[in-house]
């Protein structure tokens, strides 16, 4: 594999540094397992469980309590009576278990890197925005912009989601058990979206890259989005992922339609596959 420094794109001045980590302060390599955790991550015990009754608390108080429990080593936190409050469980850069007994409002579980979250109710707009790693599992429906700018991890909604699902998605996987609305995958740049039901209009509009799989009807495709052949690799991956989350249809995955970007990007499609992630 050609190194970054001697690539065509490097000669063009598009990037001059090797990939060093998820931010400028925290660097890690695949060989350095410890580097996958932030240096400020709490040392928590998943067997230590605590509960927060959210009924009478403001979102800021709930988020503060979560951090206090993490500081004291609790690795599993249950939120009771969340009452569809906004901005809960945000900015958690730690491996953690969260169980939400009820529904969240807008901007739930944003900016996560690491936790596993299970939600028994529904979630509002912009759930899981900018998540970098982890798993979020929603049992009921979700609002619009589900998984906006997702960068990594699995974001799963067993019900239906609103419009603009995976807008500006940069990585990771979004899985929807029901239907998705208009403009899903809008300006998608990487990652995968799987929808077991139907998709609204302008699916994949202006997508740069990434893959969308739709199990039901597609109202229409957006600019730059084109159908592609479903390969054995796709089938194996879909079967594995949907089985993991108990969403595998009885008839399997052969009926899924695969959508990819159909537009050639001059500065992108000329790159070697290993370099593409550096650009995006």
């Amino acid at each position, binding site marked *: 594999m050609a190194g970054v420094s001697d690539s065509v794109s490097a000669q063009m001045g598009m990037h001059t540094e090797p990939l060093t980590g998820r931010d400028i302060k925290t660097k890690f390599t695949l060989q350095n397992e410890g580097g996958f955790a932030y240096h400020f991550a709490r040392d928590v015990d998943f067997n230590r469980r605590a509960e927060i009754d959210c009924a009478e608390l403001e979102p800021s108080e709930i988020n503060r309590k979560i951090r206090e429990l993490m500081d004291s080593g609790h690795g599993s936190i249950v939120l009771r*009576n969340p*009452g*569809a*409050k*906004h901005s809960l469980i945000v900015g958690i850069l730690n491996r953690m278990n969260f169980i939400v007994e*009820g*529904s969240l*409002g*807008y901007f739930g579980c944003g900016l996560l890197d690491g936790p596993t979250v299970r939600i*028994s*109710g*529904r979630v*509002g*707009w912009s759930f899981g925005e900018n998540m970098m790693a982890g798993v979020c599992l929603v049992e*009921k*429906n*979700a*609002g*619009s912009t589900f998984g906006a700018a997702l960068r990594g991890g699995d974001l799963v909604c067993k019900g*239906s*989601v*609103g*419009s*603009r699902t995976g807008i500006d998605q940069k990585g990771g996987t979004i899985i929807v058990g029901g239907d998705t*609305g*208009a*403009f899903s995958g809008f300006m998608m740049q990487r990652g995968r979206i799987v929808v077991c039901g139907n998709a*609204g*209009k302008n699916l994949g509009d202006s997508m740069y890259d990434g893959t969308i799989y739709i199990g039901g009807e597609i109202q229409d495709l957006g600019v730059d989005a084109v159908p592609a052949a479903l390969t054995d690799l796709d089938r194996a991956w879909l079967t594995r992922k949907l089985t993991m989350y108990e969403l595998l249809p009885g008839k399997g995955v052969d009926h899924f339609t695969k959508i990819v970007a159909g537009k050639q990007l001059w500065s992108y499609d000329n790159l070697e596959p290993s370099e593409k992630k550096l650009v995006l």
Partner: protein
Amino acid sequence: MCGIAGLIYRDGARNIGGEMTAMLQALKHRGPDSTGFAVYGEPGPNEYILRFKVAEQEDLGRGTKIRRAIAERKAAVDGLLEELGVTVLDLDGPTEYASRYRIAYDGDMKDLADQMEEIEGTEILSIGNALELIKDLGDAADVSGAYDLGVFRGTHGIGHTRMATESDVDIRSAHPYWAYPYNDIAVVHNGQITNYWLMRRQLERSGQRFVSNCDSELLAVYTAVNLEKGMTLEDSLERSIHEIDGVFTYLITTRNELGMAKDTMAAKPMVLYEADDMVALASEEVAIRAIIPHEIDTTDPYDEEIRVWQA
């Protein structure tokens, strides 16, 4: 940003005032400038509820002359009603500048409205058999308390918390809007209408009147014109999606219906809860949870979706 909410009972009248107050108070963060309610009570035979104001709340801080002007304007309204042969069954003045009259009248309601609004500073908030439209500056609890709305019984209603973006912070620009000159029709809206001036000029050329520069008023006038032409509420909602440009979600109520329309981009939020005994809608689920604390299944209507529910 603005927050909107709607509620309709399918099993008869309940405390619609109290529940709408709770829903709108939960949406206070979406718009703290003003709050408005359009609630539908149990109509009496051949009776109308007339709600009007003769000044703005902020006028009260501008010296003592305004109080004399308010008294003169109210006297002028009373004189006009007597002249037109309107029977005032009872009257109430929840604030210095706003009044509620229960009237009996079999004349031309449009003529009555036009003549009343010729009196300086006077604006009709609503006329209806069942509709009562209340709006003022402040949050839902403030407005509901001032107008004694917490115990209002009715079948359905809509409400609005306003963050003023394109017109003034006053009662005139607050929602809901009554669909002049039609009884019992009101609108609340969240969004921006980008062909507002074009459509407004068209409607004004055909004789319609606008009292504010708020784009949401267009929806009320537009709907009134459509209904006058004989369209159903469903037809008007459907047509609005294609004739009105911009990003919007709006709710509209008639004497026994609650309707909803969402634009082609689905850019403005709406959460819907449907049950056998009620339907509740709001910009955020937290408003629905204010009246239904237990776990429920809610959905987001999609782009270009219209719905109408009967009381």
